[in-house]
């Protein structure tokens, strides 16, 4: 168990700046999710913490000690890779035991720790199988087992669920969360999936183009996005962005008005719009409308509400408290 602190982390590949300076203090036992679209530098950031990439500038501290120049094995971390990276010629047991063997752990202790982890992950019956004889979910568990047996102070997850099918992903997500709660190990988890980020994180780091746009608890980030990017990235369906001059009381410098789909209502008066099509999802309905000013918006309404026909002229309304204004740079004003 340990704290992790990143101070002014920068990364350059040749002449390309990939990460422009990240500062974050991670508390002991905290589950941090780094989320962002592909190419935003989130994996690079994680790999720098792991020691698989060098740090161009800044300082990484694990449990207070500077680790910039330490090899991955000396950082007291364990990592779960996207494609699991299991050793194909080794049994499940040997896969989990390999790190301990190298560290010179006594055989009896290795067996004990591997069996303990296997019980925790329901892998006890598979210890003698090879990775290719396992299902995707089981391989995923072996990869986690390999991380657990080393009893590291920090877990690093690099999109561990992206190779699983949707149903298994939801199940494994829950298992990872429970496991982390039970073990209480500080974790950094990289994903591009904002649902994973929302459900797993104690705090999340939303990254955009090599910068941390916002760091905060999921619901706080959802309720109070600091930039237009964060507002659009977190939440599904995404926030609607309308030209700010739709509102008479828009603050100076505001360019865009953001309203979440669940805060839009179809009403008898308000901003005029035309229904393009509706998606009935069962419990709720998404009504996509186009605005005469240009652009589209999505209204999320309860399935009990009347379903407007395509091409109908409707009016939209929303509460003044549910509005977010963003300036030309995409910052909140």
């Amino acid at each position, binding site marked *: 168990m340990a704290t992790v602190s990143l101070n002014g982390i920068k990364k350059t590949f040749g002449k390309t700046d990939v990460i422009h300076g990240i500062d974050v203090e991670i508390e002991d036992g905290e589950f941090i999710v780094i989320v962002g679209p592909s190419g935003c530098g989130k994996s690079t950031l994680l790999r720098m913490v792991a*020691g698989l990439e060098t740090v161009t500038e800044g300082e990484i501290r694990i449990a207070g000690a500077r680790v910039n120049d330490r090899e*991955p094995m000396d950082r007291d971390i364990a990592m779960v890779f996207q494609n699991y990276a299991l050793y194909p010629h080794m049994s499940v047991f040997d896969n989990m035991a390999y790190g301990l063997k190298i560290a010179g752990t006594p055989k009896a202790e290795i067996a004990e720790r591997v069996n303990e982890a296997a019980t925790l992950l329901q892998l006890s019956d598979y210890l003698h199988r090879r990775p290719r004889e396992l299902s995707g979910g089981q391989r995923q568990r072996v990869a986690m087992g390999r991380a657990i047996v080393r009893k590291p102070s920090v877990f690093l997850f690099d999109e561990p669920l992206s190779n699983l099918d949707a149903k298994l992903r939801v199940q494994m997500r829950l298992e990872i969360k429970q496991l982390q709660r039970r073990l209480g190990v500080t974790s950094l988890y990289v994903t591009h999936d904002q649902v994973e980020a929302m459900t797993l994180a104690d705090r999340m780091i939303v990254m955009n183009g090599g910068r941390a746009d916002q760091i905060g608890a999921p619901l706080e980030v959802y309720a109070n996005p600091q930039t237009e990017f964060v507002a659009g990235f977190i939440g599904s369906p995404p926030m609607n962005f309308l030209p700010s001059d739709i509102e008479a009381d828009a603050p100076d410098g505001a360019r865009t008005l953001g309203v979440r789909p669940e805060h839009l209502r179809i009403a008898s008066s308000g901003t005029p719009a035309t229904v393009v099509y509706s998606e009935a999802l069962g419990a709720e309905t998404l009504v996509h409308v186009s605005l005469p000013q240009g652009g589209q918006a999505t209204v999320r309404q309860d399935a009990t509400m009347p379903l407007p026909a395509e091409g109908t002229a409707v009016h939209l309304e929303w509460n003044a408290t549910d509005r977010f204004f963003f300036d030309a740079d995409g910052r909140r004003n």
Partner: protein
Amino acid sequence: MAGMVEKRGAGYWMTHLGLIIGLLFIFFPIWLAFVASTVSQPEIVKPPMPLLPGDQFFENYRKALFSGINAPVALMMLNSMVMALGIAFGKIVISLLSAFAIVYFKFPGRRLFFWLIFLTLMLPVEVRIVPTYQVVANFGMLNSYSGLILPLIASATATFLFRQFFMTVPDELAEAARVDGARPMQFFWDILLPMSRTNIAALFVILFIYGWNQYLWPLLITTDPSMNTIVMGIKQMFPSGDDIADWPVIMATSILAMIPPVIVVISMQKLFIRGLVDSEK
């Protein structure tokens, strides 16, 4: 329906007939060599040549193995065995290590070294034989096992093959090993080597036969009959001048020369095919 089956049946038998004829065609010279190794000298030179084995099998093979013509064939087989195994193992070790260096380490001139190794593919032994001879002679390695083996060990083909294989191994495997605390050579021994075992087996078969069949190089650097290898030894058995060739012994030697490669191929067939067909990941 019946017609279809009949048609398919005819194709089936025609294919087999073709294969059997082809097989007989290829097998016939070997059969002749075997027959010639079991009869006496006068029977061979008297036309027509016999097509069925005679009664001199043990006599001819005993003579070949233990006295030979210039040197006992048993000794030549030992020399060939040492040379073929030395070349096969040496090439595999060197290529594994150089491919490992080229794929997994960043060092100045990495590409240059790779292309230099690759270039030697275009220079077979025969092309560089004079300078190589010069070097070996200056090292005093004529008529020695090291002279037979060392110059043939550097192998672009095997290095290239292992490089291609290593490049298909996911990077994350090396990274996982690094996080697990494996030093580069531990990664090589514990992970890369076991994963390459089918490739190694396939290469071993190819390289063993390559080494066993070396002709020109041993011919050049072994002047002492006790260092002759069997493949070149056969040629040395042909008489110079007016002497009579001892065909039964020569043929017995030829048959003996074929046995080790055949054993290697048959015993490693399964691994060999797996190594060429799939890469286990």
